């Protein structure tokens, strides 16, 4: 079975289970006031349970040595129940934007965690395809070393060109403009949005200097252009892999804050409910 089909089946199964649970849950909640019971407690504790379940994904990642289900199933559950929690939140609060500072902080956290989660999920679905299409595969931690190697090669070409031609045209251009590009990853934001700013910059630099070069120097410039285009692919990897790695630095602390608010909310509700 294709991996994407498997993912779709997984989500539809979860959706089916959840819809059935929601129907049963709603029918029960509707009946609760008739028995002098408060449905907010039920919805609240279901939310609490689901939030804990969703948070367990991180624990699953630390327990790779024991067979407690494939991480792919856990992630599917994490994403699915995470989104469903928003619906449950509306049922629980009966409003989009509640009254009161604490409640608003809580609502803000719910929205931010969900939004960051959805953004991360979208990133993780789109970015791998863009990286695969780049025709280069590089391990994130090796990027600095690879960039250093590219820079070393470019500098060697520039020095060789200067030595052979006796002219410093290429060397001067390297110091004035190209060195900026080769120093570190560039065009981070354009790469994120799929823009070709890096390639455009390279073309501009080549056109700018080309007219002042001899045939031999042009051959060296072509080599530099090849390395620059190669670096452009590394920059793409750097941008996308960085975002895929570090979006969790937003999502996880927000989720932790939401959990803390939730615990405080449960304590407060139970203390003042009597």
């Amino acid at each position, binding site marked *: 079975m294709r991996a994407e089909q*498997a993912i779709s089946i997984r989500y539809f199964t979860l959706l089916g289970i959840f819809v059935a649970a929601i129907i049963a849950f709603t029918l029960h909640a509707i009946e609760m006031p008739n028995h002098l019971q408060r449905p907010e407690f039920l919805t609240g504790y279901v939310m609490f349970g689901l939030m804990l379940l969703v948070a367990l994904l991180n624990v699953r990642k630390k327990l790779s040595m*024991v067979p407690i289900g494939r991480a*792919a199933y856990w992630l599917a559950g994490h994403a699915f129940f995470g989104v469903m929690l928003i619906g449950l939140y509306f049922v629980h609060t009966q409003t989009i934007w509640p009254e009161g500072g604490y409640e608003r902080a809580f609502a803000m956290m719910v929205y931010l965690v969900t939004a960051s989660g959805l953004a991360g999920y979208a990133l993780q679905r789109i970015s*791998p395809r863009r990286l695969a299409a780049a025709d280069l595969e590089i391990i994130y931690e090796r990027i600095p070393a690879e960039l250093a190697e590219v820079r070393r090669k470019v500098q060697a070409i520039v020095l060789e060109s200067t030595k052979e031609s006796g002219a410093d045209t290429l060397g001067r251009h390297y110091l004035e403009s190209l060195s900026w590009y080769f120093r570190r990853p560039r065009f981070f934001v354009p790469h994120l949005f799929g823009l070709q700013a890096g390639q455009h910059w390279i073309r501009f630099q080549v056109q700018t200097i080309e007219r002042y070069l001899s045939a031999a120097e042009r051959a060296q410039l072509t080599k530099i252009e090849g390395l620059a285009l190669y670096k452009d692919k590394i920059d793409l990897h750097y941008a996308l892999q960085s975002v895929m790695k570090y979006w969790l630095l937003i999502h996880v602390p927000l989720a932790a804050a939401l959990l803390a608010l939730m615990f405080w909310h449960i304590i407060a509700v139970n203390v003042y409910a009597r």
Partner: protein
Amino acid sequence: MVTATIMARPQRWDAPFGPEMTDTDVERLLTLPEIAAIERGKFPNHTPLVGVIKNDSRLVRFEAGDIVVREGDYGNSAFLVVTGKLRVVLAPKLPRELIGRQSSRRKGLLEALSQIWTNRVIPEVRDTQRYTDQKLRGSATDLARSQVFLQDVPAVLVDHKTAELGPGTLFGELAALGRVPRTATIFAEEGAELLEIRWQGLRELRKYDAGWRRKIDERYRQNALKVALRESPLFQGLNETELQEVANATLFETYGSFDWHVSYKRMREQGKAEQEPVIAREGEYPDGVLMIRAGFARVAAKMGNGQRTLTYLGAGDTFGIDELWAGRDGTDVSLQTSLIALGYVDVLRVPAPILEKFVFPKMKAPPAPLIERAGRPLTEDAPMEWAVEQRFINGTKSMLIDLNLCVRCDDCVRACASTHGGNPRFIRHGPTFDHWMVANACMHCADPVCMIGCPTGAIHRSISRGAVVINDTTCIGCGTCANSCPYNNIRLVEIRDVGGRPIRDPDSQKPILKATKCDLCETNPGGPACVRACPHDALRRVDFRSGDIFRSLG
């Protein structure tokens, strides 16, 4: 003026098997009855018998209890007993621990979970105590003398049924020529001197001497041929007598180099493929059906200036049956495709008249001819062509990553590290094609060349899952397996003691090394942790021979 470096053209025997072999040794060996009986005149001038003995063989000495060959090992040489007595273990088999294997007990849930707190910050920590009671002679610096030995030979003789192998006995030739695992364990009962003949020499002896050829072929017919034929669907309707007739008429052939991994590695480094030997050529008339006994071959059809791979064949697969079936009424049908060796291939050729007499009358029409696959669009077969070219078809558990799904989170790497004492056993990097990557993880090959030459038998197949695993206790860190692995999937690591301090050899002051590789989480519950840890289902362990992997995975 450009000056060229001058060197003699490399010759076949530039690297003799046993550099310490002297002319006196050769003279003595030529007087052995088994070698004296060989007709020297039949050998060509460029490959004289004396040259074969001197360069393709070596004298090895074993002390009482030394294990000469282990059941399940792969080997590229055969042995002729010169002096002394050996014993072959018939039944019951020797316990695995006794012959240097690992006892792969699977951990319980709690024990697996305990790795959270037992894993150390410093990786590759070993309790050195367990190395002290191993039954091992020699060390990594003395490879010729490094071997697992049996301490209590009399007890083994009492508890196990064995047979004696005396001077003049030849053994190990089928495993060496056929690239199949050794079928029995043989150990020295007393001090013994053996002539070890590497496969190249063995092939020459079989080729040029009728006596050796008869001996090897007869042994093969007796021991393995009928089993191989019986397993093929082609011969399943035959009774015992008919099968014997087929076996008697079957010819044995080998193609390619036994050391294919050497040229393959060169190809990967230089990006230039070497000429592959053609077993059967498109357009020629088939004189029999070809059955692969060991190794791999690709079925190819001419396409422009090259050869398009239509499929590949492995052990048990047949070639040429489409054309022979179509021509069974007497019409001449030439081969529609070529069969080309991928590395080393051991082939059985069953002559056409035998097929017409015994097989065709009982056979149903074969499925669609292989040539029909040439009608598929080129892009459909491109990933398979790549897998064949890169020899990934050898892998039974290759780590295939779908780069369209992989978010490069390294959860797989961390999962591997957490189940292997803090150090991962693979690198999430490797050759890519389209959106596929075969990562640098042991593929648990069908033809595990890494197992050839391990002096202690530390690298072996596990009984439970057939994975290729390394027994850390008997590994001497010589690097033979790592050097042989065509895919660079075995790594030598410097080990540390329980205090985290590096361990050094007292004589050489060099660090003690151990070979490490993916073991498919042999001792952990739940199968490979890398697969379970991937949150996006991007990582699979696949057998390239089980259908069209790329199409099924999308």
